[in-house]
């Protein structure tokens, strides 16, 4: 590393923040693009499992709430792709790389949503896991990303509320409804435990070294367990991991998450990866004429 790069690294590691027009090392810019683009992709792909349930949601209120959540998540992807564009990679390129399978998106969005219970578990626990990562991004060394994360976290907290409401309604319902929630939780527990990634020490994580992230993966997972396992248990739900328990020193113990599954899924081999990317490909093709005809006309 050059002296200038060393100085930059020291600056971000001591809490300094960087603006779009500031000088930055190429490696820092590349890491930012990779990280933020994956986040944008995940927001965009994350609406598909929920979109499948808009027409099947049990009441009009739930259909409207789910539609609004989908709109929020697409809005997040727009904000995030703007940040990526300012770093040098236009949104169109991000979308090209997403649908060709070149870039990645979060593991949880590669799975099917089998029942309405899954929709509740996603809005409650997947969004809860996500907000833990996102809150840690409020301190990101890249200031434009940190700033939009404030708005995103605010809306995500709202989604958790919606998810809890869906779950509580079902838990107060019939045995069949409670069973639906328990089955959904069992299906999602594995992917949820994989969500925050391999427990590599923060000091070895390039995203932490550059202070793009402000906490390590293992730390985020502990925070998730600490915040949500008690909430799961108090509803009379069980977690399908016999090793799950909180130690006397406050640390959660659990079975090793399936890292092979995580790797397999995020590299494009999840049960719903192909179908969902296919849908993106189709809609992008179908709306191509709009971009071709309307946008130059308007410019």
């Amino acid at each position, binding site marked *: 590393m050059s002296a200038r790069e060393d100085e930059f690294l020291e600056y971000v590691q001591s809490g300094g923040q960087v603006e779009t027009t500031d000088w930055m090392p190429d490696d820092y810019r590349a890491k930012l693009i990779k990280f933020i683009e994956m986040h944008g992709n995940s927001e965009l792909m994350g609406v598909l499992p929920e979109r499948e349930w808009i027409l099947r949601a049990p009441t009009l209120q739930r259909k409207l709430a789910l539609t609004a959540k989908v709109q929020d998540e697409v809005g997040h992807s*727009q*904000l995030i792709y703007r940040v990526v564009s300012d770093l040098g990679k236009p949104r169109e390129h991000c979308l090209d790389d997403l649908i060709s399978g070149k870039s990645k998106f979060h593991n949880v969005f590669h799975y099917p949503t089998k029942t309405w219970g899954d929709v509740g578990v996603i809005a409650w626990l997947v969004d809860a896991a996500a907000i833990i990562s996102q809150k840690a991004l409020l301190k990101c060394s890249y200031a434009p990303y940190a700033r939009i994360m404030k*708005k995103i976290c605010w809306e995500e907290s709202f989604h958790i509320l919606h998810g809890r409401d869906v779950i509580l309604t079902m838990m107060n319902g019939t045995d069949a409804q409670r069973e639906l929630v328990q089955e959904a939780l069992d299906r999602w527990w594995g992917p949820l435990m994989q969500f925050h990634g391999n427990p590599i020490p923060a000091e070895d994580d390039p995203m932490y070294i550059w202070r793009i992230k402000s906490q390590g993966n293992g730390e985020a997972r502990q925070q998730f367990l600490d915040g949500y396992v008690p909430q799961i248990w108090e509803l009379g739900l069980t977690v399908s991991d016999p090793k799950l328990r909180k130690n006397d020193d406050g640390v959660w113990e659990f079975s090793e998450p399936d890292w092979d599954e995580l790797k397999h899924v995020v590299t494009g081999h999840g049960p719903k990866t192909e179908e969902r990317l296919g849908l993106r490909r189709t809609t992008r093709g179908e709306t191509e004429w709009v971009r071709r005809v309307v946008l130059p006309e308007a410019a």
Partner: protein
Amino acid sequence: MIYEVFRQERKGQAFAHAGSVEAPNEEFAEWYAREEFGRRGESVALWVVPREAVHEIDEFVDELGRNYHRVDGYPLKEKLKQARERAGTSADRRS
């Protein structure tokens, strides 16, 4: 075209930068801004400004050392200590 969006959260508050939108013209920019920054009642007003229209100034040179403009131009602590000692009131204050 990139448009910078500023939003006002409550009447009477300062507008603060909210983010940006990419749009082919002002009309699209306005609608994108409404969707992204005003959908949930989080804003009472928005300013939508073409990025080129924003002129940033980030260097503030002070060759003349005009510290009488600033708080650091008035180091009262030492002077106050001296004045109290002169008046013989510093011990009283401590007790």
